């Protein structure tokens, strides 16, 4: 095969030819890679074998820690595998990494844009680095700028582009010398839905017009449906490979939407998810989406079946069916707010935050009622983390008023802080302390002592299934357990209000479901929960939410109401993502 490949050559003409490369552009055989950080053994990849189909988009799907990035880096010749072989465009990735790198395009998670250079200077720099001939450049720039819609911003500094635009520029830089194989590592994570759609349409055009083969990794399961082929990784192992329908189709006839009255949705959801024969039950606005177990013949009671409506299965249903069979179904421990009060738990009036001449938050006004689950939804850079930090008192406000439990936390007495719980997106724990030492510290920091502290620590270890890890250094815990520990630490003192900053970013869908089950239990107990997220479907789990983009609140209300606003002809039942896109379009008419 190599002679044929050489005959085709890496020249631009060959790449533009619409015919796909006849052999697999990426053949992986028994790929194994083990990392040993600090004496620990992490099996990043465990005997993974698959062939990439030429000329299509293949999705590499899996949660954080599944081995996606390791696989990408090995394929790009940046890492050497412990065992197995990788053949890229007919070349061995271990033997000839340099010639592979000159023929493929690889965009890592954080593409190395130079923020102090303009868009054009970035393009020039990468064109120089990739040795693109000066005579070919202008034509290529024009084409890429037309694809990415960045043409109007050639003179702007890369650092001043929005998150989605940066991602598109990174992609353009990768494509300057048209590659035959394109490796994209999580290009859409944290990017707003509009830019996400645009990135996808660029990828489709590359496949169609330039005959590229694309391997794209993502942690969003809904993106699997946009791929022709899907490679599903979980904990370093290949779960399955095939077209996305192969994962969702077995679930057809098992997926339903149950309409319920708004007040009882959490209780019903918790009840349903514990029913035998129910694989999955998640909130979706005013309804509950239920997936039945394909293997089980048990059905929920007939009476409840009456208002069930069959819906199309999703890729995620297949994922849960494949991997979620062993997850725990017991009743989660109750937690009640200590001093349950009525009225508004959080009040925000005309809130603004300025960084230099940049307005990160522009006049936000909203309130969160006691016992409500309130979501702040937005892409990276939308201002939701800035808002969140001002609410917690971690960042001074530029103007406006913030009241949490009746006080401004920034100037409040220490006691007021004792009534809130906080969990940051990094699951901030002391990595070299053990689980028990961490819990012990947070218990004492919240003023618990003696028997009370002991009791709460034991509660945390039991309720969060951390009992076996008491003496484990928390830095070595798997991500899902770190998340549990962080939540346990935030709940040590039974707070009235819980702040969660992107609590589910990076964890797998099963751990995400578990966390939301816990949030539901807290809400049932009267705890107010404020949560930020960039997962559209998590917005459905909230009682009310605020959608943010470039520092502004675009919409405020219940998920059902927000979705209803986007309903129109041809889109009678819009998803949260469609609603979001409509809102952004109104903001910046294209």
């Amino acid at each position, binding site marked *: 095969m190599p002679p044929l490949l050489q005959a085709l050559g890496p020249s631009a003409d060959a790449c533009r030819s619409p015919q796909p490369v006849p052999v697999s552009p990426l053949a992986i055989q028994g790929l194994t890679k083990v990392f040993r950080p600090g004496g620990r053994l992490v099996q990043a990849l465990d005997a993974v074998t698959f062939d990439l189909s030429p000329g299509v988009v293949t999705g590499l799907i899996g949660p954080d820690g599944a081995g996606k990035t390791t696989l990408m880096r090995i394929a790009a010749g940046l890492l050497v595998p412990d065992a197995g072989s990788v053949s890229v465009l007919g070349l061995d990735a271990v033997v000839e990494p340099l010639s592979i790198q000159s023929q493929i395009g690889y965009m890592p998670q954080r593409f190395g844009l130079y923020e102090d250079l303009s868009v054009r200077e970035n393009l020039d720099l990468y064109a120089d680095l990739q040795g693109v001939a000066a005579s070919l450049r202008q034509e290529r720039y024009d084409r890429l700028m037309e694809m990415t819609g960045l043409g109007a911003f050639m003179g702007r500094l890369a650092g001043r582009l929005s998150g989605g635009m940066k991602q598109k520029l990174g992609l353009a830089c990768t494509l300057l010398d048209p590659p035959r194989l394109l490796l994209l590592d999580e290009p859409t994570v944290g990017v707003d839905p509009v830019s996400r759609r645009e990135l996808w349409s660029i990828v489709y055009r590359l496949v169609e017009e330039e005959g590229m083969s694309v391997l794209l990794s993502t942690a969003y399961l809904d993106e699997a449906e946009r791929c022709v082929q899907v490679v599903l990784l979980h904990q370093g192992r290949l779960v399955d490979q095939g077209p996305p329908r192969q994962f969702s189709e077995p679930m057809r006839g098992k997926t339903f939407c149950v309409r319920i009255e708004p007040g009882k949705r959490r209780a019903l959801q918790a009840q349903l998810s514990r029913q035998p024969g129910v694989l999955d039950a998640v909130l979706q606005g005013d309804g509950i989406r239920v997936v039945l177990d394909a293997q089980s013949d048990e059905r929920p009671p007939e009476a409840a079946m009456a208002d069930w409506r069959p819906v199309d299965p999703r890729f995620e249903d297949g994922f849960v069916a494949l991997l979620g069979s062993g997850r725990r179904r017991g009743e989660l421990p109750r937690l009640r707010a200590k001093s349950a009060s009525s009225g508004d738990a959080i009040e925000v009036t005309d809130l603004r935050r300025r960084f230099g001449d940049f307005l990160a938050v522009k006049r936000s006004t909203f309130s969160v009622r006691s016992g409500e689950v309130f979501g702040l939804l937005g892409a990276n850079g939308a201002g939701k983390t800035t808002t969140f930090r001002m609410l917690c008192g971690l960042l001074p406000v530029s103007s406006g008023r913030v009241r949490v439990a009746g006080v401004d936390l920034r100037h409040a007495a220490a006691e007021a*802080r004792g009534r809130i719980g906080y969990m940051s997106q990094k699951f901030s724990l002391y990595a070299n*302390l053990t689980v028990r030492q961490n819990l012990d510290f947070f218990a004492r920091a919240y003023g618990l002592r003696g028997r009370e502290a002991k009791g709460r620590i034991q509660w945390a270890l039991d309720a969060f299934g951390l009992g076996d890890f008491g003496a484990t250094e928390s830095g070595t815990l798997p991500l899902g357990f770190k998340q549990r520990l962080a939540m346990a630490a935030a709940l040590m003192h039974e707070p009235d209000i819980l702040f969660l900053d992107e609590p589910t970013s990076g964890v797998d869908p099963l751990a995400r479901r578990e966390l939301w089950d816990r949030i539901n239990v807290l809400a049932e107990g009267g705890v107010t929960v404020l949560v930020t997220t960039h997962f559209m479907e998590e917005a459905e789990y909230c009682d009310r939410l605020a959608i943010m983009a470039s520092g502004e609140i675009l919409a405020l209300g219940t998920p059902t109401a927000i979705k209803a606003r986007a309903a129109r002809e041809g889109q009678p039942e819009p998803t949260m993502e469609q609603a979001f896109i409509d809102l952004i379009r109104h903001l910046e008419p294209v």
Partner: protein
Amino acid sequence: MLGRILALTVKELLALLKDKRSRFVVVVPPFIQLLVFGYAASFDLNHIPYAVYDRDGGYAARELLAHFEGAPSFQLVSSIRRQEEIAALIDRRDALLVIQIPPGFTADLVSGRTAPAQILIDGRNSNSAQVVQTYVSRILAGFNQDWVARHQLQGMPVSLVTRAWYNPNLESRWFFVSGLVGLLTLVVTMMVTALSVAREREQGTFDQLLVTPLRPFEILIGKAMPGVLIGALEASLVVTLAVFWFGVPLTGGLGVLYCGIFLFVLAAVGVGLMISSLAATLQQALLGAFLFMVPAVILSGFATPIDNMPAAVQLLTLVDPLRYYLLILRSVFLEGAGFELLLHQMWPLGLIALATLSAASWLFRHRMT
């Protein structure tokens, strides 16, 4: 409140001592510095290589040269026969010093006249040249006295008898090692504290800490405690080594010494925490610590006297905590000074500690991120 501070202190110590790199930083660099400064840093010259060009050959000349040969600081490397050899010897750094005795030296002395002798010194290192010159004058003075006494001549009108107080043999090791207590306390305290807030900011745990009921001053005390403990421990260790290993006399009382140590460690912890809360990352904090430490050492009078610095720079030394600490250390070690003499060195230390610690605890909440 006490419970919360204690919890934070225990957490800090655990986090510090469980980390391999922090343990390394606390133990190894101070040990290396102790060796380097204890043995290598010295103003004293031993075995000064010198050459002799004796054009006289008389007994007085031989007697003078015998004085040099008998001195432990001098070592004869060559006897010269021709004038041209001198330049070559000094150029090649074979000899630091050439003694030339002109013809008629003995005759002049015997007849009671003053006789000249020439000393050529390699001036490329001005510092050691001066030291050599001092040594030579001392030997010549000794020779003169012996000569006068032996030949019953009338003595010189004034005879100089020098006694160096507090360090009778003017051993520079006494000076350096006592200063070293200061230097090492500074390095270790800065290392322990400069990283503590920055590390937590980088890992996001500092936000977690700020939302607990811990007040800024409680965080400050909790964060300062490990620095104070480890700094004081390090100071004690170096003091012990200075006395029992390097044989530097500790003439003063331990009470006044520890009072100085405590105040200085507080000031150093304050500076460290201030740098740490200003920094956004570990790297910035490390860089900041070095940006502070290098000038602090130079301005402290550790190696070069403050009195020799330009007036403006001397003003700058007033905010350097190490300056006061070194004075306290050297006074306590060598002169045995008590509180009444050192009070004026102690209150500025207290003031610096107060200012930097308050700044640090203000920065905890107010630094923009």
